[in-house]
């Protein structure tokens, strides 16, 4: 446990020693704001809620999360620090979790920086704060799940560019699974059951259900188990591909 804390702390601090962190925070906060007001028509809707704010989060994450996760292992592998890291008396699981929690906490900071939005709607009207809290949770969860996918992809390669591109494609695919566009595309080809299966894996559907304020344990479990699977896969990939 202590080792995990040490690893997480180092990773977390390391984000702030590179410009990536500051650029990420700036882009996330400004884009999420801009999208809310312009694309989401925050004022035009005439409602005191943050629906138009959270609606865009998965789409921001699709591009921004891979920018965080690409470094995780690809950089360690390229620079050779992985050799030093993996000869420390810690398990691979601890290493993977350390990096994951650090990245997740970093996204948490980005989310915290958007709190003025919450304050603003409370100033403008009487929003359902329970729903907003749930939406923040949903946003945080989906970010974590994307990070776990990105972590696994980053562990497969030495190149950050490859890690970024592949993670982005994976995130887009996962978000789109279960979207109407994809369902329409496949509706004639595959059976109803397969479509249901697709939908059950669609991130957007679970995300939207949480942001509506419905605390469904199945949605929570979905994100948690999905992350666990990919983190476990990261451990396996690392154990098998250390030196290459």
């Amino acid at each position, binding site marked *: 446990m*202590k*080792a995990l804390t*040490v*690893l997480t702390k*180092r990773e977390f601090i*390391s984000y702030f*020693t*590179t410009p990536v962190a500051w650029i990420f925070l700036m882009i996330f906060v400004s884009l999420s704001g801009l999208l809310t007001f312009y694309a989401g028509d925050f004022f035009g809707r005439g409602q005191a809620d943050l629906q138009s704010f959270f609606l865009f989060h998965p789409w921001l994450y699709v591009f921004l999360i891979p920018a965080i996760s690409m470094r995780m292992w690809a950089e360690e592998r390229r*620079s*050779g*620090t992985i*050799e*030093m890291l*993996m*000869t*420390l*008396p*810690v*398990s691979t699981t601890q290493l993977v979790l350390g990096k994951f929690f650090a990245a997740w906490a970093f996204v948490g900071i980005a989310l915290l920086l958007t709190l003025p939005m919450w304050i603003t709607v409370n100033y403008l009207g009487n929003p359902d704060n329970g729903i907003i809290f749930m939406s923040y949770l949903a946003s945080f969860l989906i970010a974590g799940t994307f990070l776990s996918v990105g972590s696994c992809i980053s562990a497969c390669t030495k190149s950050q560019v490859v890690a970024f591109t592949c993670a982005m494609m994976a995130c887009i695919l996962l978000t789109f699974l279960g979207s109407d566009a994809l369902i329409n595309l496949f509706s004639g080809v595959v059976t109803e059951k397969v479509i249901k299966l697709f939908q059950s894996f669609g991130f957007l559907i679970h995300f939207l259900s949480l942001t509506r304020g419905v605390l469904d344990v199945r949605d929570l479990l979905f994100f948690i188990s999905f992350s666990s699977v990919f983190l476990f896969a990261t451990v396996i990939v690392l154990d098998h591909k*250390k*030196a*290459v």
Partner: protein
Amino acid sequence: MIILENVTRKFGSFTAVDHLSMSVPKGQVLGFLGPNGAGKTTTMRMISGFLTPSSGKITVCGYNVEENPVEVKRHIGYMPEVASSYNDMTVLSFLNFIAEARGLFASVKEKAIEKVVSEISLSNVLYQPIETLSKGYKRRVGLAQALVHDPAVLILDEPTEGLDPNQKHEIRTLIRHLQKDKAIIISTHVLEEVEAMCSRAVIIDKGKIVLDDTPRALLNLSGRHQIVSVLISANHKDTAETAFSEDPKINIADVKQETEQTVLFTLYPTGKESIAATIVDALHQKDIEILDLFIEKGRLEEVFYAYTSADKEMKDHKE
């Protein structure tokens, strides 16, 4: 402390380490030699738990590397060949991280870092980001990282690579100093280092041990061992030449006019014993002043080349 039994490591169809067995007891410094690609780094990575062997068994301090990797890593200090550290960290924060990850905290940690910093003379650069350091300092940070928890087993992959002669000397002194209560494996290309630091030399080639002996024994295998060169005044050239050729122990290999006033004799012994004293006596009797005298210790390089494949192929080619 380190036991390798029939260890093999394959990368695809390539066998990097081929049924290698050896053991290193406490107090021994093993110099690990071999050409590039002989399997030195792979072997060291397997001992340190970074790579797992394809077959065979490695035991460190009584723990099996595959069954109990965390426990093994706790007892090992490992300096990788590319000793890269986190470039954006300062030396101090990096050492703090390593010490904490190795389970040292608070005052124990501070003492450990203080000790290693003074041993490796890093105090000047403690607050500098690692990326701004010179190559020599970076290597030293890599060494400090391996020593901070005072491990029972040290695995150093070319520790003096890229250091200047002074720094090399410091590291050698340090390793000799550490030797008594540790088992140490050092890989190197620099053969004098084996003489300077190691109590045992192992040459591997194509993943197999081709020679395992003391550095001194290796020296004796060298053809140039015990060759003596002596410099005298040119006036005495003929007298000396007769004196040497009369002595049955001494053979003349070469006589060379060094400058107008001096001449250099290269002499080798008939048997295995040293001939330096005989030469001095012979010249003394004839009242010839010795201007300079040096004894060739033999070169590990020659043994090394003779036992590793690159040169064998070359020899075959010549024949």
